[in-house]
Protein backbone atom coordinates (compact mmCIF):
# COMPACT_ATOMS: atom_id res chain seq x y z
CA UNK A 1 0.00 0.00 0.00
CA UNK A 2 2.80 2.41 0.95
CA UNK A 3 4.64 1.46 -2.21
CA UNK A 4 1.57 2.12 -4.26
CA UNK A 5 1.15 5.57 -2.75
CA UNK A 6 4.80 6.31 -3.32
CA UNK A 7 4.39 5.29 -6.93
CA UNK A 8 1.30 7.50 -7.35
CA UNK A 9 3.31 10.38 -5.86
CA UNK A 10 6.00 9.88 -8.47
CA UNK A 11 3.38 9.98 -11.21
CA UNK A 12 2.21 13.37 -9.93
CA UNK A 13 5.69 14.91 -9.62
CA UNK A 14 6.83 13.19 -12.83
CA UNK A 15 5.85 15.91 -15.31
CA UNK A 16 7.58 18.67 -13.31
CA UNK A 17 10.72 16.53 -12.93
CA UNK A 18 10.70 15.72 -16.64
CA UNK A 19 10.36 19.41 -17.56
CA UNK A 20 13.19 20.29 -15.17
CA UNK A 21 15.34 17.55 -16.66
CA UNK A 22 14.73 18.57 -20.30
CA UNK A 23 14.63 22.35 -19.94
CA UNK A 24 17.18 22.81 -17.17
CA UNK A 25 19.47 19.84 -16.46
CA UNK A 26 20.11 18.96 -20.10
CA UNK A 27 20.97 22.56 -21.10
CA UNK A 28 23.34 22.82 -18.12
CA UNK A 29 25.09 19.64 -19.28
CA UNK A 30 25.28 21.21 -22.74
CA UNK A 31 26.91 24.33 -21.27
CA UNK A 32 29.55 22.21 -19.53
CA UNK A 33 30.16 20.13 -22.66
CA UNK A 34 30.33 23.19 -24.93
CA UNK A 35 32.85 24.86 -22.63
CA UNK A 36 35.20 21.99 -23.47
CA UNK A 37 34.90 22.54 -27.24
CA UNK A 38 37.03 25.01 -29.14
CA UNK A 39 36.18 27.71 -31.62
CA UNK A 40 38.83 27.77 -34.32
CA UNK A 41 38.47 29.73 -37.52
CA UNK A 42 34.75 29.84 -38.24
CA UNK A 43 33.93 26.39 -36.90
CA UNK A 44 33.58 24.60 -33.61
CA UNK A 45 36.12 21.90 -32.93
CA UNK A 46 34.51 19.17 -30.84
CA UNK A 47 37.60 17.55 -29.42
CA UNK A 48 37.41 18.05 -25.70
CA UNK A 49 40.06 20.33 -24.26
CA UNK A 50 40.62 22.81 -21.47
CA UNK A 51 41.67 25.58 -23.87
CA UNK A 52 38.85 27.95 -22.93
CA UNK A 53 39.69 27.67 -19.26
CA UNK A 54 43.31 28.37 -20.11
CA UNK A 55 42.17 31.51 -21.89
CA UNK A 56 40.05 32.52 -18.90
CA UNK A 57 43.11 32.12 -16.71
CA UNK A 58 45.43 34.14 -18.95
CA UNK A 59 43.40 36.63 -21.01
CA UNK A 60 43.77 40.18 -19.67
CA UNK A 61 40.45 41.40 -21.15
CA UNK A 62 38.57 38.66 -19.34
CA UNK A 63 40.40 39.36 -16.08
CA UNK A 64 39.52 43.03 -16.39
CA UNK A 65 35.84 42.21 -17.01
CA UNK A 66 35.75 39.88 -14.00
CA UNK A 67 37.43 42.54 -11.87
CA UNK A 68 34.99 45.20 -13.11
CA UNK A 69 32.08 42.89 -12.27
CA UNK A 70 33.33 42.18 -8.77
CA UNK A 71 34.03 45.88 -8.11
CA UNK A 72 30.69 47.10 -9.42
CA UNK A 73 28.77 44.40 -7.56
CA UNK A 74 30.83 44.97 -4.39
CA UNK A 75 30.10 48.72 -4.48
CA UNK A 76 26.44 47.92 -5.13
CA UNK A 77 26.23 45.63 -2.10
CA UNK A 78 27.92 48.20 0.16
CA UNK A 79 25.87 51.19 -0.95
CA UNK A 80 22.52 49.40 -1.07
CA UNK A 81 23.06 48.16 2.48
CA UNK A 82 24.12 51.61 3.70
CA UNK A 83 21.09 53.28 2.13
CA UNK A 84 18.64 50.50 3.01
CA UNK A 85 19.54 50.00 6.67
CA UNK A 86 18.42 53.42 7.99
CA UNK A 87 15.31 53.24 5.82
CA UNK A 88 14.39 49.79 7.14
CA UNK A 89 15.08 51.04 10.68
CA UNK A 90 12.83 54.07 10.21
CA UNK A 91 10.03 51.96 8.76
CA UNK A 92 10.31 49.33 11.50
CA UNK A 93 10.60 51.68 14.51
CA UNK A 94 9.38 55.16 13.53
CA UNK A 95 6.46 54.52 11.19
CA UNK A 96 3.21 53.57 12.98
CA UNK A 97 2.50 49.84 12.60
CA UNK A 98 -0.63 50.23 10.49
CA UNK A 99 1.23 52.32 7.87
CA UNK A 100 4.27 50.04 7.60
CA UNK A 101 2.80 47.74 4.94
CA UNK A 102 1.91 50.73 2.75
CA UNK A 103 5.37 52.31 3.11
CA UNK A 104 7.01 48.97 2.24
CA UNK A 105 4.78 48.77 -0.82
CA UNK A 106 6.09 52.21 -1.91
CA UNK A 107 9.64 50.93 -1.43
CA UNK A 108 9.09 48.15 -3.95
CA UNK A 109 7.64 50.35 -6.72
CA UNK A 110 10.81 49.86 -8.83
CA UNK A 111 10.09 46.12 -8.84
CA UNK A 112 6.81 46.80 -10.60
CA UNK A 113 8.48 48.48 -13.55
CA UNK A 114 9.94 46.12 -16.07
CA UNK A 115 13.60 45.30 -16.20
CA UNK A 116 14.46 47.02 -19.51
CA UNK A 117 12.20 49.97 -18.81
CA UNK A 118 13.75 50.57 -15.40
CA UNK A 119 17.20 50.94 -16.92
CA UNK A 120 15.82 53.14 -19.70
CA UNK A 121 14.19 55.44 -17.17
CA UNK A 122 17.59 56.00 -15.55
CA UNK A 123 18.82 57.28 -18.90
CA UNK A 124 16.06 59.90 -18.79
CA UNK A 125 17.31 61.06 -15.42
CA UNK A 126 21.05 60.92 -16.17
CA UNK A 127 21.20 62.13 -19.81
CA UNK A 128 23.22 65.23 -20.78
CA UNK A 129 20.02 67.29 -20.87
CA UNK A 130 18.18 64.98 -18.48
CA UNK A 131 16.36 65.70 -15.25
CA UNK A 132 19.42 65.93 -12.98
CA UNK A 133 21.55 68.09 -15.25
CA UNK A 134 18.72 70.49 -16.06
CA UNK A 135 17.79 70.82 -12.40
CA UNK A 136 21.38 71.49 -11.32
CA UNK A 137 21.81 74.01 -14.15
CA UNK A 138 18.60 75.85 -13.34
CA UNK A 139 19.87 76.21 -9.76
CA UNK A 140 23.16 77.49 -11.20
CA UNK A 141 25.08 74.81 -9.35
CA UNK A 142 26.89 73.71 -12.49
CA UNK A 143 27.72 75.40 -15.78
CA UNK A 144 28.38 72.54 -18.15
CA UNK A 145 26.19 69.41 -17.94
CA UNK A 146 27.85 66.50 -16.14
CA UNK A 147 28.55 63.22 -17.90
CA UNK A 148 26.47 60.82 -15.84
CA UNK A 149 25.16 58.21 -18.26
CA UNK A 150 27.48 55.51 -19.66
CA UNK A 151 29.77 55.48 -16.65
CA UNK A 152 30.48 53.07 -13.82
CA UNK A 153 28.75 55.57 -11.53
CA UNK A 154 25.55 55.15 -13.58
CA UNK A 155 25.70 51.34 -13.41
CA UNK A 156 26.23 51.33 -9.65
CA UNK A 157 23.51 53.95 -9.15
CA UNK A 158 20.96 51.96 -11.17
CA UNK A 159 21.91 48.74 -9.37
CA UNK A 160 21.69 50.40 -5.95
CA UNK A 161 18.29 51.77 -6.90
CA UNK A 162 16.95 48.26 -7.43
CA UNK A 163 18.73 46.51 -4.60
CA UNK A 164 17.93 49.09 -1.92
CA UNK A 165 14.43 47.70 -2.23
CA UNK A 166 15.58 44.09 -1.74
CA UNK A 167 17.78 44.89 1.26
CA UNK A 168 15.17 47.16 2.85
CA UNK A 169 12.72 44.26 2.84
CA UNK A 170 15.13 41.71 4.31
CA UNK A 171 16.55 44.11 6.93
CA UNK A 172 13.05 45.23 7.89
CA UNK A 173 12.03 41.59 8.36
CA UNK A 174 15.01 41.05 10.68
CA UNK A 175 14.41 44.23 12.70
CA UNK A 176 10.75 43.36 13.26
CA UNK A 177 11.72 40.04 14.79
CA UNK A 178 13.78 41.64 17.55
CA UNK A 179 11.76 41.32 20.77
CA UNK A 180 10.96 44.90 21.85
CA UNK A 181 11.89 44.22 25.47
CA UNK A 182 15.56 43.53 24.67
CA UNK A 183 16.51 47.13 23.73
CA UNK A 184 14.19 48.39 26.50
CA UNK A 185 15.95 46.19 29.07
CA UNK A 186 19.35 47.47 27.91
CA UNK A 187 18.09 51.06 28.28
CA UNK A 188 16.82 50.33 31.80
CA UNK A 189 20.23 48.97 32.73
CA UNK A 190 21.75 52.30 31.77
CA UNK A 191 23.01 51.76 28.20
CA UNK A 192 23.03 54.85 25.95
CA UNK A 193 20.82 54.74 22.82
CA UNK A 194 23.91 54.40 20.66
CA UNK A 195 25.24 51.54 22.78
CA UNK A 196 21.86 49.79 22.58
CA UNK A 197 21.92 50.08 18.82
CA UNK A 198 25.53 48.91 18.46
CA UNK A 199 25.34 46.01 20.91
CA UNK A 200 21.71 44.84 20.70
CA UNK A 201 19.76 45.99 17.65
CA UNK A 202 22.50 45.86 15.04
CA UNK A 203 23.84 42.37 15.89
CA UNK A 204 20.29 40.97 15.96
CA UNK A 205 19.54 42.41 12.51
CA UNK A 206 22.64 40.98 10.83
CA UNK A 207 20.67 38.05 9.30
CA UNK A 208 18.58 40.52 7.28
CA UNK A 209 21.70 42.35 6.15
CA UNK A 210 23.32 39.07 5.10
CA UNK A 211 20.32 37.77 3.16
CA UNK A 212 19.90 41.14 1.41
CA UNK A 213 23.59 41.31 0.53
CA UNK A 214 23.54 37.73 -0.77
CA UNK A 215 20.51 38.32 -3.01
CA UNK A 216 22.05 41.56 -4.27
CA UNK A 217 25.31 39.85 -5.12
CA UNK A 218 23.73 36.88 -6.87
CA UNK A 219 21.24 38.89 -8.90
CA UNK A 220 23.63 41.71 -9.82
CA UNK A 221 26.61 39.60 -10.88
CA UNK A 222 24.59 37.84 -13.60
CA UNK A 223 22.87 40.97 -14.86
CA UNK A 224 23.43 42.12 -18.41
CA UNK A 225 20.73 44.75 -19.01
CA UNK A 226 21.63 47.39 -16.45
CA UNK A 227 25.34 47.65 -17.31
CA UNK A 228 24.55 47.49 -21.02
CA UNK A 229 21.86 50.18 -21.11
CA UNK A 230 22.96 52.52 -18.32
CA UNK A 231 26.68 51.84 -18.16
CA UNK A 232 27.27 51.62 -21.89
CA UNK A 233 30.18 49.85 -23.52
CA UNK A 234 33.02 51.87 -21.96
CA UNK A 235 33.96 49.24 -19.44
CA UNK A 236 32.63 45.74 -19.86
CA UNK A 237 31.32 43.55 -17.09
CA UNK A 238 31.56 39.76 -17.36
CA UNK A 239 27.96 39.21 -18.60
CA UNK A 240 28.52 41.85 -21.29
CA UNK A 241 31.70 40.13 -22.43
CA UNK A 242 29.81 36.81 -22.48
CA UNK A 243 27.07 38.30 -24.66
CA UNK A 244 29.71 39.71 -27.01
CA UNK A 245 31.10 36.21 -27.54
CA UNK A 246 27.62 34.98 -28.40
CA UNK A 247 26.38 37.81 -30.61
CA UNK A 248 29.50 39.09 -32.36
CA UNK A 249 31.95 36.23 -32.41
CA UNK A 250 29.69 33.19 -32.30
CA UNK A 251 32.25 31.79 -29.85
CA UNK A 252 29.83 29.63 -27.86
CA UNK A 253 32.55 27.53 -26.21
CA UNK A 254 34.26 30.55 -24.62
CA UNK A 255 30.87 31.99 -23.62
CA UNK A 256 29.99 28.65 -22.01
CA UNK A 257 33.20 28.70 -19.97
CA UNK A 258 32.36 32.24 -18.82
CA UNK A 259 28.83 31.17 -17.88
CA UNK A 260 30.34 28.43 -15.72
CA UNK A 261 32.65 30.95 -14.05
CA UNK A 262 29.54 32.99 -13.13
CA UNK A 263 27.87 29.84 -11.79
CA UNK A 264 30.91 28.89 -9.73
CA UNK A 265 31.21 32.40 -8.24
CA UNK A 266 27.55 32.31 -7.16
CA UNK A 267 27.92 28.75 -5.80
CA UNK A 268 31.03 29.75 -3.85
CA UNK A 269 29.33 32.79 -2.31
CA UNK A 270 26.36 30.59 -1.44
CA UNK A 271 28.58 27.96 0.17
CA UNK A 272 30.35 30.58 2.28
CA UNK A 273 27.18 32.29 3.47
CA UNK A 274 24.73 29.35 3.46
CA UNK A 275 24.56 28.86 7.20
CA UNK A 276 23.75 32.54 7.75
CA UNK A 277 21.08 32.69 5.09
CA UNK A 278 17.89 32.56 7.09
CA UNK A 279 15.46 35.20 8.20
CA UNK A 280 13.75 32.92 10.67
CA UNK A 281 14.52 33.51 14.28
CA UNK A 282 16.85 31.02 15.83
CA UNK A 283 15.24 29.38 18.80
Amino acid at each position, binding site marked *: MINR*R*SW*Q*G*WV*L*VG*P*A*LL*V*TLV*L*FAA*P*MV*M*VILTSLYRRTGGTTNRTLSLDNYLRLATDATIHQALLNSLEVVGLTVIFSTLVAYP*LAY*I*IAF*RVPAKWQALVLL*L*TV*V*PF*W*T*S*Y*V*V*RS*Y*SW*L*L*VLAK*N*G*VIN*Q*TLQSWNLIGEPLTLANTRFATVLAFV*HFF*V*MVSTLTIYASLRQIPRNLPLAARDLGASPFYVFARVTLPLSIPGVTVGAFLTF*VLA*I*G*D*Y*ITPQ*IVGGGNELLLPQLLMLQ*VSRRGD*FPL*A*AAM*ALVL*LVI*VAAVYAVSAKNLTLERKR
Partner: protein
Amino acid sequence: MKLLRGSISWIYALLVFGFILMPVASLVVFSFQATNLPLPPFTGPSLRWYEELFADSGMVEALRNSLVVGVVSAFFSTALGFLSAYGLARYRPAGARAIRAAIMTPLGVSYLVIGFGLAITANELALGRSLVLVTLGHIIINLPLAFAILLSQMRDEDETLEKAARDLGANEWVVITRIAIPVVVPGLLAAFLLSFTLSWDEFLIAFFLADFDVTLPIEIWSQLRTGLDAKTNAAGTLVFAISVVALTLAYVLNRAVQQRSRRA
Protein backbone atom coordinates in the same frame (compact mmCIF):
# COMPACT_ATOMS: atom_id res chain seq x y z
CA MET B 1 16.38 66.11 20.77
CA LYS B 2 13.60 63.68 20.11
CA LEU B 3 12.00 66.14 17.68
CA LEU B 4 15.32 66.59 15.88
CA ARG B 5 15.81 62.85 15.58
CA GLY B 6 12.28 62.50 14.27
CA SER B 7 12.74 65.14 11.59
CA ILE B 8 16.10 63.71 10.48
CA SER B 9 14.34 60.36 10.03
CA TRP B 10 11.62 61.92 7.90
CA ILE B 11 14.05 63.90 5.76
CA TYR B 12 16.11 60.76 5.18
CA ALA B 13 13.04 58.70 4.28
CA LEU B 14 11.82 61.41 1.89
CA LEU B 15 15.22 61.59 0.16
CA VAL B 16 15.39 57.83 -0.32
CA PHE B 17 11.83 57.70 -1.62
CA GLY B 18 12.69 60.52 -4.01
CA PHE B 19 15.58 58.39 -5.25
CA ILE B 20 13.39 55.31 -5.54
CA LEU B 21 10.55 57.03 -7.35
CA MET B 22 12.48 59.48 -9.58
CA PRO B 23 13.10 57.19 -12.59
CA VAL B 24 9.54 55.85 -12.59
CA ALA B 25 8.15 59.36 -12.24
CA SER B 26 10.30 60.61 -15.15
CA LEU B 27 9.14 57.68 -17.23
CA VAL B 28 5.43 58.21 -16.60
CA VAL B 29 5.42 62.03 -16.71
CA PHE B 30 7.32 62.30 -19.99
CA SER B 31 5.18 59.66 -21.64
CA PHE B 32 2.59 62.47 -21.77
CA GLN B 33 5.09 64.82 -23.46
CA ALA B 34 3.73 66.72 -26.48
CA THR B 35 7.13 67.15 -28.18
CA ASN B 36 9.61 64.53 -29.36
CA LEU B 37 12.12 64.31 -26.53
CA PRO B 38 11.13 62.84 -23.16
CA LEU B 39 13.25 65.43 -21.34
CA PRO B 40 12.43 68.56 -19.37
CA PRO B 41 10.73 70.98 -19.81
CA PHE B 42 7.40 69.15 -19.74
CA THR B 43 5.32 70.21 -22.74
CA GLY B 44 2.22 68.05 -22.27
CA PRO B 45 -0.03 66.62 -21.22
CA SER B 46 -0.75 64.89 -24.48
CA LEU B 47 -1.74 61.39 -25.52
CA ARG B 48 0.15 61.71 -28.80
CA TRP B 49 2.74 59.04 -28.00
CA TYR B 50 0.14 56.55 -26.85
CA GLU B 51 -1.63 57.02 -30.19
CA GLU B 52 1.65 56.49 -32.02
CA LEU B 53 2.35 53.45 -29.85
CA PHE B 54 -0.90 51.76 -30.86
CA ALA B 55 -0.34 52.76 -34.49
CA ASP B 56 3.05 50.96 -34.40
CA SER B 57 2.31 47.45 -35.66
CA GLY B 58 5.63 46.08 -34.33
CA MET B 59 4.78 47.24 -30.82
CA VAL B 60 1.21 45.97 -30.93
CA GLU B 61 2.42 42.61 -32.25
CA ALA B 62 5.06 42.39 -29.50
CA LEU B 63 2.46 43.30 -26.90
CA ARG B 64 0.22 40.49 -28.11
CA ASN B 65 3.14 38.02 -28.18
CA SER B 66 4.08 38.95 -24.62
CA LEU B 67 0.52 38.41 -23.42
CA VAL B 68 0.31 34.98 -25.10
CA VAL B 69 3.74 33.83 -23.88
CA GLY B 70 2.92 35.11 -20.39
CA VAL B 71 -0.45 33.40 -20.13
CA VAL B 72 0.64 30.09 -21.67
CA SER B 73 3.89 29.80 -19.68
CA ALA B 74 2.20 30.86 -16.44
CA PHE B 75 -0.51 28.25 -17.01
CA PHE B 76 2.02 25.43 -17.45
CA SER B 77 4.26 26.56 -14.57
CA THR B 78 1.24 26.69 -12.28
CA ALA B 79 -0.18 23.35 -13.45
CA LEU B 80 3.16 21.53 -13.13
CA GLY B 81 3.81 23.28 -9.82
CA PHE B 82 0.45 22.18 -8.48
CA LEU B 83 0.78 18.54 -9.54
CA SER B 84 4.25 18.20 -8.04
CA ALA B 85 3.40 20.06 -4.81
CA TYR B 86 0.27 17.94 -4.40
CA GLY B 87 2.15 14.73 -5.15
CA LEU B 88 4.89 15.56 -2.66
CA ALA B 89 2.62 16.72 0.15
CA ARG B 90 -0.04 14.02 -0.09
CA TYR B 91 1.77 10.92 -1.31
CA ARG B 92 5.18 11.56 0.32
CA PRO B 93 6.98 9.49 -2.32
CA ALA B 94 10.38 7.95 -1.63
CA GLY B 95 13.10 10.55 -2.22
CA ALA B 96 10.79 13.52 -1.50
CA ARG B 97 13.65 15.74 -0.33
CA ALA B 98 15.67 15.08 -3.48
CA ILE B 99 12.63 15.78 -5.68
CA ARG B 100 12.03 19.08 -3.93
CA ALA B 101 15.66 20.09 -4.31
CA ALA B 102 15.65 19.12 -8.00
CA ILE B 103 12.58 21.21 -8.82
CA MET B 104 13.93 24.20 -6.88
CA THR B 105 17.46 24.19 -8.37
CA PRO B 106 16.80 26.45 -11.41
CA LEU B 107 16.04 29.26 -8.96
CA GLY B 108 19.73 29.40 -8.06
CA VAL B 109 20.97 29.87 -11.61
CA SER B 110 20.89 33.24 -13.33
CA TYR B 111 18.60 33.80 -16.32
CA LEU B 112 21.69 34.57 -18.38
CA VAL B 113 23.04 31.05 -17.91
CA ILE B 114 19.64 29.34 -18.31
CA GLY B 115 18.91 31.31 -21.49
CA PHE B 116 22.33 30.60 -22.91
CA GLY B 117 22.04 26.89 -22.09
CA LEU B 118 18.65 26.66 -23.81
CA ALA B 119 19.98 28.57 -26.83
CA ILE B 120 22.93 26.24 -27.42
CA THR B 121 20.77 23.17 -26.77
CA ALA B 122 18.19 24.34 -29.31
CA ASN B 123 21.03 25.08 -31.70
CA GLU B 124 22.41 21.57 -31.23
CA LEU B 125 19.01 20.03 -31.94
CA ALA B 126 18.63 22.30 -34.99
CA LEU B 127 15.49 23.84 -33.48
CA GLY B 128 14.91 27.32 -34.86
CA ARG B 129 14.48 30.19 -32.41
CA SER B 130 10.82 30.92 -31.78
CA LEU B 131 8.25 32.12 -29.30
CA VAL B 132 7.58 28.47 -28.43
CA LEU B 133 11.15 28.22 -27.13
CA VAL B 134 10.69 31.48 -25.21
CA THR B 135 7.55 30.01 -23.63
CA LEU B 136 9.45 26.86 -22.62
CA GLY B 137 12.21 29.02 -21.13
CA HIS B 138 9.68 30.97 -19.09
CA ILE B 139 8.04 27.75 -17.87
CA ILE B 140 11.32 26.51 -16.41
CA ILE B 141 12.19 29.78 -14.61
CA ASN B 142 8.72 30.10 -13.07
CA LEU B 143 8.11 26.45 -12.17
CA PRO B 144 10.21 26.58 -8.95
CA LEU B 145 8.32 29.66 -7.75
CA ALA B 146 4.87 28.24 -8.52
CA PHE B 147 5.91 24.97 -6.88
CA ALA B 148 7.15 26.72 -3.72
CA ILE B 149 4.00 28.85 -3.42
CA LEU B 150 1.70 25.85 -3.85
CA LEU B 151 3.72 23.56 -1.57
CA SER B 152 3.27 26.15 1.20
CA GLN B 153 -0.49 25.91 0.61
CA MET B 154 -0.76 22.15 1.05
CA ARG B 155 -2.27 21.76 4.51
CA ASP B 156 -2.88 18.62 6.50
CA GLU B 157 -6.48 19.60 7.29
CA ASP B 158 -7.30 19.46 3.60
CA GLU B 159 -5.93 15.94 3.49
CA THR B 160 -8.59 14.95 6.03
CA LEU B 161 -11.24 16.19 3.60
CA GLU B 162 -9.69 14.15 0.83
CA LYS B 163 -9.57 11.01 3.00
CA ALA B 164 -13.21 11.49 3.91
CA ALA B 165 -14.10 11.77 0.22
CA ARG B 166 -12.18 8.57 -0.57
CA ASP B 167 -13.97 6.76 2.27
CA LEU B 168 -17.22 7.87 0.69
CA GLY B 169 -16.14 6.25 -2.58
CA ALA B 170 -14.61 9.11 -4.60
CA ASN B 171 -11.79 8.09 -6.95
CA GLU B 172 -8.46 10.02 -7.24
CA TRP B 173 -9.70 12.10 -10.17
CA VAL B 174 -12.76 13.28 -8.29
CA VAL B 175 -10.64 13.98 -5.18
CA ILE B 176 -8.23 16.16 -7.14
CA THR B 177 -10.77 18.07 -9.24
CA ARG B 178 -13.48 18.48 -6.62
CA ILE B 179 -11.42 18.99 -3.45
CA ALA B 180 -7.66 19.40 -3.89
CA ILE B 181 -7.87 22.09 -6.59
CA PRO B 182 -10.78 24.14 -5.21
CA VAL B 183 -9.20 24.48 -1.75
CA VAL B 184 -6.01 26.05 -3.16
CA VAL B 185 -7.58 28.37 -5.74
CA PRO B 186 -6.10 31.54 -4.15
CA GLY B 187 -2.65 29.91 -4.17
CA LEU B 188 -3.10 28.83 -7.80
CA LEU B 189 -4.07 32.35 -8.84
CA ALA B 190 -1.18 33.90 -6.90
CA ALA B 191 1.27 31.49 -8.54
CA PHE B 192 -0.23 32.17 -11.96
CA LEU B 193 -0.12 35.96 -11.62
CA LEU B 194 3.43 36.01 -10.28
CA SER B 195 4.57 33.72 -13.11
CA PHE B 196 2.77 35.90 -15.62
CA THR B 197 4.38 39.09 -14.31
CA LEU B 198 7.86 37.60 -14.38
CA SER B 199 7.38 36.28 -17.92
CA TRP B 200 5.86 39.58 -19.04
CA ASP B 201 9.00 41.42 -17.88
CA GLU B 202 11.59 38.86 -18.81
CA PHE B 203 14.27 39.99 -21.23
CA LEU B 204 17.36 37.76 -21.34
CA ILE B 205 15.78 34.40 -22.10
CA ALA B 206 13.52 35.96 -24.74
CA PHE B 207 16.58 37.72 -26.18
CA PHE B 208 18.38 34.39 -26.57
CA LEU B 209 15.44 32.41 -27.89
CA ALA B 210 13.15 34.72 -29.88
CA ASP B 211 13.54 35.19 -33.60
CA PHE B 212 11.59 37.72 -35.70
CA ASP B 213 8.50 37.48 -33.53
CA VAL B 214 9.56 39.20 -30.35
CA THR B 215 8.16 39.98 -26.93
CA LEU B 216 7.59 43.50 -25.65
CA PRO B 217 10.83 43.89 -23.64
CA ILE B 218 12.82 42.93 -26.76
CA GLU B 219 10.87 45.38 -28.93
CA ILE B 220 11.49 48.16 -26.39
CA TRP B 221 15.16 47.19 -26.28
CA SER B 222 15.51 47.53 -30.04
CA GLN B 223 13.82 50.94 -29.94
CA LEU B 224 16.40 52.08 -27.38
CA ARG B 225 19.00 52.08 -30.12
CA THR B 226 17.38 55.15 -31.63
CA GLY B 227 18.00 56.99 -28.35
CA LEU B 228 15.58 58.66 -25.98
CA ASP B 229 12.09 58.66 -27.43
CA ALA B 230 8.78 59.64 -25.85
CA LYS B 231 7.14 56.65 -27.52
CA THR B 232 9.41 54.35 -25.51
CA ASN B 233 8.16 56.18 -22.41
CA ALA B 234 4.59 55.42 -23.43
CA ALA B 235 5.43 51.74 -23.98
CA GLY B 236 7.27 51.58 -20.65
CA THR B 237 4.38 53.21 -18.82
CA LEU B 238 1.98 50.71 -20.35
CA VAL B 239 4.15 47.77 -19.26
CA PHE B 240 4.35 49.30 -15.78
CA ALA B 241 0.57 49.71 -15.61
CA ILE B 242 -0.11 46.09 -16.58
CA SER B 243 2.44 44.80 -14.04
CA VAL B 244 0.81 46.94 -11.36
CA VAL B 245 -2.59 45.41 -12.12
CA ALA B 246 -1.25 41.82 -12.10
CA LEU B 247 0.81 42.31 -8.93
CA THR B 248 -2.01 44.09 -7.10
CA LEU B 249 -4.24 41.11 -7.85
CA ALA B 250 -1.52 38.74 -6.64
CA TYR B 251 -1.10 40.81 -3.46
CA VAL B 252 -4.82 40.82 -2.69
CA LEU B 253 -5.02 37.06 -3.30
CA ASN B 254 -1.93 36.46 -1.20
CA ARG B 255 -3.59 38.26 1.69
CA ALA B 256 -6.62 36.05 1.27
CA VAL B 257 -4.30 33.03 1.33
CA GLN B 258 -2.56 34.20 4.49
CA GLN B 259 -5.83 34.89 6.23
CA ARG B 260 -6.91 31.38 5.33
CA SER B 261 -3.70 29.93 6.81
CA ARG B 262 -4.15 32.01 9.96
CA ARG B 263 -7.70 30.84 10.46
CA ALA B 264 -6.59 27.25 10.22
